[in-house]
């Protein structure tokens, strides 16, 4: 899996950084870098909802 960051101009003067994830099997996912960073932060700090079979 390879990740690259690109800057995209929306044509109205706003430039946004996007993440392109190349999953290595011909599949790609893109999203704004800010969203990606937020998801990564969440993934690393998931609330331990179920910790055992209790």
């Amino acid at each position, binding site marked *: 899996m390879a990740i690259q960051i*690109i800057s995209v101009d*929306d044509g109205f003067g706003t430039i946004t950084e996007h993440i392109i994830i190349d999953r290595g099997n*011909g599949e790609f996912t893109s999203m704004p870098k800010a969203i990606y960073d937020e998801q990564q932060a969440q993934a690393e700090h998931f609330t331990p*909802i*179920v910790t055992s*079979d209790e």
Partner: protein
Amino acid sequence: MANPTTNFGWVMPTSADLVTDLPADFAVFGQGVDTSMQYLLGGTTGQVLSKTSGTNMAFTWTTPTDQTPLTTKGDLFTFTTVDARLAVGNNGETLVADSSTSTGLRYQGSQAGGKNAVINGGMDIWQRGTSIAMTAAELFTADRWFVYRGGLVTGGTISRQTSGVNFTRYGLRLQRDSGNTSTQPLYLNSTLETQDSIGYAGQTMTFSFYAKAGANYSGGALLGRVLYGTGTDQRVTSFTGIAVAISVSATLTTSYQRFQGTATVNAAATEIGFDFGYTPTGTASTNDWVEITGVQFELGSIATTFQRAGGTLQGELAACQRYYYRNLVGSTNYGFFAWGIGQGGTSALFAIANPVTMRTTPTVVEFSNLGFAQTGGITAITTLVHSNSSPSSAFLQSDGSNTANTIYRLIGNNSASAYLGIGAEL
């Protein structure tokens, strides 16, 4: 008093009789009374007097036919051609008119659309594919269902399976791959938007689901939970102030069983989610999995018959596409996705009307084997991002050399597996 008496004609002694033949006169009087009352004799416990004709004193003792037929709690007093009993229905069923039954009434399960808050609880919609390898530690699987594994471990597969459960066709199988040695727990969850959650705050709710395990299942009880938080539109794994509203510990067998729990949701809840989890043990064998379907969250203290949140299959698909949709090309290698225009250089724009208005402006693009072309000669795409999208349309910007102000088609790049997904998930 008249003599004889006015109603029964009983002859009473007269003043002359008192000095002539009093005993005989009383005998006449008494016999008259006795004859008149003879119809009141007889009968037995529970019987009542019934007129046999319009003639005076024409009575007979009869057993009343209008006794209650009710025998059991919840019975209803109904009528066929005679009084009849209608036994109470099953939990959660409602009474409907049905002229084909002897009483004209019938209990049946509720199939009201919208009673279930869980979108895709029947595991009908799998826009991302029906078998998904857990190559990342967290990912969406069946629509609205997100899976992740503790410690960000991979090594699982999520797949669609035939359920055999009434009112569902499929179940979701959450499987630890054979040979996987990690004992990190596996989780499956789904989250409601805040605007879909707040109505349940302070309400008595019932959470129900069907589940079973594979023959080599290594986990303990499967925990199914309703969780709540006090934030706004967060994914359940990141709820502010997360707490458990309902917890159901399901001891699984290799056959589907229905499990349920009821509780009052905290009045402060502003977001609600659903979570399943188990912790495997040892090394996974071939059938180390759980299957889940028929997930329902509804008002009241009874689990009623499962029904899709969207009512129909099409309604359920539309509900899912509020969060994500994926366009496929089917069996065509050059299937069409969108019209666009070149900007010159290496930037082209493509516009798509979303199939339903999405939850919010979409931010995610998922794609595979896409390219653009005018009349021939496809330019492959490896970059495709949202530019000025909105909840009702996706406006995408791609890479690839092009000619300015030229119309292009966004199409499959010689591949029947090409797809384009647009995401606005929580």
